């Protein structure tokens, strides 16, 4: 993924088109920030943080898939996340990423995106529940169910925030910068 190949954000569009375009733009931005690096480079932290680009890829994959396919639809986690003992290892995706090849990490990210887009196409297409549609799960703090609007906006900010982390980590690996 190159900087110039990323999804466009149309400057005048309806709500659903705009939200999906911003999400796609940030999905592409993360792929660009992680492109062209070796397995060792993807495992390189920028101290004092122990975050890595590979860990970020695996983290975003589970966060995206769990929000759309598990929390919103109630469909469960996808492999390999479905068999992880999360109670005993909450940061499993972060510290196991170093064992994965770049190809495996990109494939995981692509699969999470594909599954999430199936959910979004269904919810936002003809006869779908729309952006006011509510999640299968309730917030653990008693606030009730999440709207699809909130989940989409949250995923945009989640990606964008992590892309900010990726900006500094990538620059420390090989000097590459850019918005």
């Amino acid at each position, binding site marked *: 993924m190159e900087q110039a190949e990323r999804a466009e954000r149309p400057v005048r569009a309806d709500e659903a088109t705009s939200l999906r375009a911003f999400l796609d733009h940030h999905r592409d931005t993360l792929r660009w920030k992680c492109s062209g690096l070796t397995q060792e480079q993807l495992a390189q932290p920028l101290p004092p943080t122990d975050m890595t680009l590979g860990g970020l890829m695996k983290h975003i994959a589970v966060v995206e898939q769990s929000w759309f396919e598990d929390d919103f639809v109630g469909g469960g986690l996808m492999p390999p996340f479905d068999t992880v003992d999360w109670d005993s290892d909450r940061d499993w995706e972060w510290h196991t990423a170093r064992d994965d090849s770049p190809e495996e990490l990109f494939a995981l990210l692509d699969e999470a995106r594909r599954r999430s887009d199936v959910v979004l196409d269904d919810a936002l297409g003809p006869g779908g529940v729309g952006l006011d549609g509510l999640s299968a799960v309730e917030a653990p703090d008693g606030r009730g169910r999440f709207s699809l609007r909130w989940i989409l906006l949250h995923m945009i900010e989640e990606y964008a925030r992590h892309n*900010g982390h990726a900006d500094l980590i990538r620059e420390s690996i090989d000097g590459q910068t850019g918005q």
Partner: protein
Amino acid sequence: MTQTFDQGTRREAPIRADELTALRGFLDYHRDTFRWKCAGLTQEQLAQVHPPSTMTLGGMMKHLALNEVGWFGQTLAGDDYPEPFAGVDWDADPDWEWRTAGDDSPEDLRALYDDCVSRADAAIDRALESGGLDHESVETSSSQGAFSLRWIILHMIEEYARHNGQADLIRESIDGVTGE
């Protein structure tokens, strides 16, 4: 009066809300997150870099203040830039706000930032009186034409979230403070 920001007093976006409430909720959440990331630091700490990046939290405060009045004031509403931005020769010094922030006290940076956010909110309120989120900007892009208010708010949410990600790592390198 000094208002302190921490993770616990930050405004949250409601999980079920109409489009406008949700967008402004996420924008305010990231403004407060940014205030929290910059809170409690000295002028020297706000000027500290996390190499190899040359960004500083003070520079980021001045940069986001400029973005607030740039997008909501100048582009959306056609307002002139307020001082100190109005007097800058941007062609000669395109990174002026990043470069000069080290000379400003934390109080001056926060006052500038808060003033620009107030101006931005006033410009959003005026735009909403005439057209809602499809309201089109006064200034236009040469290739794409006018920006909708919807696009400008979404862009500012991504702009803030991206810079807050950078601020996470810079802040951690200054004094070890972390947190989403």
